[in-house]
């Protein structure tokens, strides 16, 4: 019996699949991103601001990224650090090592991450945002991230690039979030 235990457990994506879900509607592509590792980073009293992975912590509303690692502001003295394709690693431990003296908490599986890309630049992304979130696109351009409501769910909306939109929502509601996103994407797509 115990020998079966050494078989590693297999992970499912937030949407419950063995592989990430993807939907293409016209110029817009919506894709689940199960590889995204997340850890929260909070400053402790009296600690100086670290620069994890060499990235300066962005100010309120800001997002910044390089080489597959990105950081966005989530609350006063608090950020989420994200890394592509590292969900299976103990990313919180890695971040903790990069941010000595800070409070770091594993958040990878707290969220379902969805990436939306437009093949024709920013315009379809702005149209989509208008249907999804009450954010003024003039204030939330590329390089910003914020927490807001989407279909009665709390989400992070990230603008990594003009033609891209990332939405992080609570993992347990991944199905509802996917439905909301795909419905809107399908309606926007020409």
């Amino acid at each position, binding site marked *: 019996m115990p020998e*079966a235990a050494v078989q590693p457990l*297999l992970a499912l994506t937030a949407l419950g699949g063995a592989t990430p879900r993807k939907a293409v509607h016209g110029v817009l592509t919506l894709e689940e991103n199960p590889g995204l590792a997340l850890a929260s980073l909070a400053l402790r009293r009296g600690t100086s601001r670290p620069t994890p992975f060499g990235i300066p912590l962005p100010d309120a509303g800001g997002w910044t990224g390089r080489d597959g690692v990105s950081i966005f502001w989530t609350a006063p003295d*608090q950020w989420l650090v994200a890394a592509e394709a590292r969900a299976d690693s103990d990313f919180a431990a890695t971040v903790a090592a990069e941010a000595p003296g800070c409070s770091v908490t*594993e958040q990878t*599986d707290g969220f379902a991450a969805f990436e939306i890309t437009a093949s024709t630049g920013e315009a379809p992304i702005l149209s989509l945002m208008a249907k999804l*979130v009450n954010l003024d696109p003039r204030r939330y351009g590329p390089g910003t991230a914020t927490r807001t409501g989407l279909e009665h769910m709390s989400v992070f909306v990230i603008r990594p690039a003009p033609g891209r939109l990332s939405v992080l929502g609570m993992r347990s509601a991944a199905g509802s979030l996917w439905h909301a996103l795909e419905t809107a994407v399908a309606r926007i797509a020409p």
Partner: protein
Amino acid sequence: MRLQGGLIDRSKTLRFTFDGKSYQGHPGDTLASALLANGVRLMGRSFKYHRPRGPLSAGSEEPNALVELRSGARQEPNTRATVVELFDGLEAASQNRWPSLAFDAMAVNDLLADFLTAGFYYKTFMWPRAFWEKLYEPAIRNAAGLGRLSMEADPDAYDKGFLHCDLLVVGGGAAGLAAALTAARAGASVILADEDHRLGGRLLAESDLLDDQPATTWIADVESEFASLPNLRIMRRTTVWGAFDHGVYGAVERVADHLPTPASAVRQTLWRITARRMILAAGATERHIPFANNDRPGIMLAGAMRAYANRWAASPADRVAVFTNNDDGHHSALDMKAKGVSVAAVIDARPDAKAFGDYRLIAGAHVTSSRGRLGLRSVQVTHDRGREWIDCGALGVAGGWNPNLQLASHQRGRPVWDDTLHAFLPGDLPAGMTVAGAAAGHGSTQAALASGTKAAVEALAALGMTALPATLPRAEDRASGLHPLWHVPGKGRAWVDFQNDVTVKDIRLAHKENMRPVEHLKRWTTLGMATDQGKTSNVTALAVMAELTGQSIAATGTTIFRPPYTPVSLSVLGGGDTGTHFRPRRLTPSHEWARAHGAVFVEVGQWMRAQYFVQPGETHWRQSVDREVLATRKGVGICDVTTLGKIDVQGADAGAFLDRLYANPMASLKVGMVRYGLMLREDGHAYDDGTCARLTEDHFVVTTTTAQAGPVYRHMEFARQCLWPELDVQLISTTDAWAQFSVAGPNARKLLERIVDGFDLSNAAFPFMACASLTVCGGLRARLFRISFSGELAYEIAVPARYGHALIARMIELGADLGVTPYGTEALGVLRIEKGHPAGNELNGQTTAQMLGMGQMVSAKKDAIGAVMSRREGLLAEPRVLVGLLPVNPADPVVAGSHLFTKDAEQRTETDEGWITSAAFSPHIGSAIGLGFLANGRARLGEVITAANPLQGQQIALRVVSAHFVDPEGERLRA
């Protein structure tokens, strides 16, 4: 009849039906214009008296021409024919008539008019009271009321969205176009919304030239410049229907209402527009002049009559007359004449009126009655020389114009009477709003254009932007010369509010019955309370009331408007999603596994939790639940408890912080241990319970109940940020991050030993209330807590959520020989009731630690939220405490919610001794059991009391016992 010209596309013919009869129209037509062009004036029956009615207006203010549109599930009642864009195949039907529009049996109501006066319902249907619901209301609804619902689900999709701009311009007429042009040229982000499908507003309905060219030429030029301005968004078919706080406006875009079916598109979109400034350029609505029998089909607003002629090339008749108290009425006559319609006369109430062209003018005269059963045939004109009947098929009535200031009123801004214009003008405006054009009383085209430009320059200046006024075309700038005439005195019924069938007589009666404040008048007569919100009646009614009271209109009162400006469908307000997508659904990490293993799910807030797992042969839920409970107590059971809130608490002061939050001490908790915790509210009542696990000196993980996961996290954040910002604490929710399973039962340790990676689970190494970070199944990081909700030897094991599915599958696979079983929330509930563990039913916001038997937990050695208030005299004197309850007759049920009384005592509120909070069938005991709060319960163990359930007439004898039905000494969970 169809006239020449107009803004319709005659190259295409559209077929449509009205009450089953086929007609033809053209693109650009509305249903009303197409019907008029086909010689149909009769379009509906009135609400109360079932009087034949035709369109009064040519716009969204229409009170009369309400029809049912489409058929089947898409059938929509109360649609205004005046704003329905014609499409090929459109089906419309009249409503509120039986058996037909031309012969309506309910028109008998009209003969009872003296009986059906103001306040009729209030006076008549007072008794017997029992008759209201079953008899009066259905009968009234059948006789009155408007259209009918299809009673089928709405098949269409609705959407919603959010827009932001510097300036929102509401209305695309002269003022709105000038404002949008001025602001957009200056680089501001501008949204221009108009309810029509075509920009131009009233300009489309007029024959006046702009710069010696038709207005449509200027509009086309403006639209072509609009197309080159990326900072301007034009929203056609979009009604801004509400002005809300903080510069937020509600708007509905009718995306596909003009199409036979929306196909794949959404039907309507609800937009929330956040605008830094707003210009209300909604124009004005013409008012009529009540006279006897003024409601026949063919009698309409004079401006509407010329709009039908100029824009839609339609006339209600080939011979028309005009009744006016101002010069504008004469222009309606001139326009009709120019279109080839014969003008029988212009009846002008002003004795000194002059003709503006070649037509018969009867100055100083009133229209005093009309004839024509289903449509106007003639009008009676009375002047100082006598009376005469003038044959005409339509009468345009011009009583002046009321500014459309509704949105300016949506935040309680009361309109202000202007004695010069004889109209209400916007009063206190919502922040950021300016009113321009006819809505501000600037009624001529020239004045409207200028006021729109000025408003835009000022709005942008307020935003720190500079705009240059647009060069405006030359336009008409006529004065109206209005002399007020609010109604024609006389004996017959003169309608004021067409949609709710309110006459001058009704207002007079209301006055007589002392319903004099305007708000009383409105409710007594139902004036202005129909779906049109009295757009064509409110001001006239006020004026009539003023005349009766002998006061000025300003002193009589004013009217106020609330959203929506025009009716909005509930579907679009609902935002579109229905059924399973109506609200977010949260699924546990083992959801798919549970579904595949026969789980029946239950909604727990947004969560879907497995309630029980049906095995082959089980036909009743109790069979499944009893099996799960017994199997857990005998072998080992596994339950997904991911839904319990998890909050990561870190920082140098984490322990001190938790000490202040929980009633019992937490700072003293040793690393590697867990402690049950009880939180109190500020008022001293129990708030939530859960566990605190100390992973390291400065790192705790606390759990909350499922229901309070969000509120407790918010409560803790409030405490951290506002109460004790000096503490070094960091919080973050990890509820979704970890899949957590309860593994409970005598074989729990044996099962876990098969998945942990060399971790010592012995009682000595990992005792009751221990916790640890470890790895399982060959290196997967996990957390293990030895806590028990069931009273059994139990653990909770957590792994990253993505592995939850695989972990439960693995444990079930490995535990087959240990009697492993998955169990759901129902068995979870039975297990915890058997153990006497409080849950939501006991922590219901009305109970205290003392009542829960946890009074000693409220530490006297430290302070915590609610601790002081929990020692209030009144709370300390509370005698009720948690006890267990067993039926004396084992076959009897225990019913939660029942109230507890001393046996044989009289059952009154004063003798009530408590209530049953939780009840279940205990397969362990073999009967129903319950938990409840009972006065002096601890001293009454063994006593037989009565549980009264007056709802079902039950009186059940219960024995008071310890709340711990299972293992009262707690030996099992420490095993």
